């Protein structure tokens, strides 16, 4: 099998959302001592880009999108130890701490956003749902995040987003981390009102918005 054929298989595995195949190809790349950087840059990443294109065209819906993003994530997990061993650093689009704010246990929307962001090259630290505000700040500080993403589905918990920004200001950390908000209850006006740096309506626009905010 030529290198090109291998890369095409990688791409195909991601586009088709075939997790077994995506993982197995990652293992094969390691076993055969291939150039992992090339495998990622010319196989996996073009795959997820194609998925994005199919979404834009209306061919792919959320189940396809999420399945492919999860394949991507699984393959990257397999290659991660090897990449670290060989000191290859994959260009990260930025470090993101994400979670659903305190009092809110709805995290489906946040999960979609986290998956898509991570598939698009962001280093995503997902804190889960019902996350205490200080936890966001501690974690962002600890990992030196570029961006904090806050989700709130409930109207009663969206105020948590506002409080987080207030708390960042109190601690003199406002500006150090960019803050992006989202969730069913939230809109652009709310984001502006509370002084958030960004807002996105859905997972796909979140990628563009996050890239703009991290400037990477």
């Amino acid at each position, binding site marked *: 099998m030529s290198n090109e054929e291998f890369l095409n298989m990688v791409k195909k595995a991601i586009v088709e959302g075939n997790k077994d195949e995506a993982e197995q190809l990652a293992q094969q790349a390691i076993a055969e001592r291939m150039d992992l950087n090339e495998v990622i840059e010319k196989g996996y990443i073009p795959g997820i880009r194609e998925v994005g294109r199919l979404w834009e065209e*209306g061919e792919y*819906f*959320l*189940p396809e999108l999420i399945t492919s993003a999860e394949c991507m994530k699984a393959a990257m997990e397999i290659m991660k130890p090897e990449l670290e061993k060989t000191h290859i650093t994959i260009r990260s689009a930025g470090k993101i701490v994400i979670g659903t704010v305190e*009092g809110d*246990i*709805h995290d*489906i*929307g946040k999960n*979609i956003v986290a998956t898509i962001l991570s598939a698009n090259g962001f280093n995503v630290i997902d804190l889960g749902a*019902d996350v205490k505000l200080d936890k966001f700040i501690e974690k962002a500080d600890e990992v030196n995040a570029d961006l904090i993403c806050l989700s709130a589905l409930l*109207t*009663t918990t969206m*105020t948590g987003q506002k409080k987080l920004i207030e708390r960042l200001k109190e601690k003199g950390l406002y500006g150090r981390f960019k803050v992006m908000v989202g969730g*069913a*209850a939230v809109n652009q006006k709310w984001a502006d009102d509370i002084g958030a740096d960004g807002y996105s309506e*859905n*997972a796909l626009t979140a990628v563009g918005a996050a890239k703009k905010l991290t400037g990477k």
Partner: protein
Amino acid sequence: MIKTHRPKLELLSNELIQKIIEEAYIILENQGVFIENEEALSLLRDAGMKVDASSQRVKITPQLVEESLLSTPASLKMYDRNGETEYLLGEDEVHFDPGSSAVTILDSETQQERKAVTDDLIRFSHLTECLEHLHFQSTGILSTDVSEIVSDSYRLYIGLLFSKKPIVTGTFRVEGFEPMHRMLVAVRGSEKNLSDKPLAIFDACPSPPLKWSNLTAQSLIDSARAGIPSELISMGMTGATSPVTIAGTLVQHVAENLSGLVICQLAKKGVPVIFGGCPVSFDMRRGTTPIGAIETMMIDSAYAQIGKHFNLPTHSYMGMSDAKINDAQGGFETGIGTILAALSGVNVISGAGILDFIRCQSLEKLVVDNEICGMAYRLIEGIAQRDDPIALDLFKDFTADTQFLSMPHTRKWYKVEHTFPKLTDRDPYDTWISQGKKSIDARAKEKVTELLRNNEPPLPDKETRQALREIMLSDAKRNDMSSLPEISFP
């Protein structure tokens, strides 16, 4: 006379109902549910259920579910604030109320959503009071001129002041129950009176899949002990937080609702529980939760049928729209939902006034929806045999000149057999032109103003008002709010 047939919609075969219930029982017994509330877990542990303390997961046996179903009443009665008018919740009785939990109100001038303040809540409750087909009110909008911490109790406070209809409400914090319960007791005079004549229903939503949060589990327990009926609002999103198939989502819905019902019965045996929900057909393209989707309504109608199979009172969020203004979509989604809900015999139908995925309440829409509810009531009355023979007598003297307008039979029955909408356009074209070519939204806006101007709000007596205000004020003060927005009583 032949007995009038009550028109009825049943989407599921008995066989499929049995299968869905069977699978729900298996899930409760094998996978169990997560309950993030120690009190609920200990109730279940005491009932002999296997509780895994570290994961807060509990497995519920079919025997306990059966026992809990047996002790739950098949119906209950709600009473208005005066304790006079009574409403049966059970069988195929239908009661409409405005959809609850909107965060915004549609501004009738700008046609944009905006945050609501006290005055909007007052107009909303007062308007609900004026609309005859809405039997219940709901704490349907958040007021942003009070601290968000007390937004649950404040909604109830305003509702109890400006409408005497029974109220559908719920807590946003564990501590919210106490002041809200005290307000209800203040209206009824005593805890016993409140439990004898329920005035409020408390909604409690499990978190799909199969989880009760601390807040919602506590609400079930607190409500049960106070004799307040809980409405179980399971809310799976197909393919996202519940199985993608409608039948699959129904399995999860039944399992979640039954686990809630078990908690209620363990907290207080015999307390009424309403089998409700707000599931949606998740939009796989946009990641949104359309309540106006036909599949959403199919899930609603079907779980209500299963609730009836259990012999329980039922509820659903139906008769709402995802449209952003009062346009054709706003009307057709609401119309379809309202009619399907009524035909399904859902006892409490929450939806009127709602736009934009339950985010927005519109007073104009509330008035329009009231009219849709009126149509639904007429529909489910069915077609009656009024006379025997039905029509033969009317044709006795049949000639070429026969007409029916002046017949006594017509005068006797026309107002019984036919309804007369107040807002729907039935004018000839020229009349419509001469009256300003108004859309239903424009007419509704005038109607809102007219109703609020011509009807005094039915305020409780001064003593009760004072008591309610004190409870609200002390709740506000406990939460760092020193005063409440000024309310001017007419």
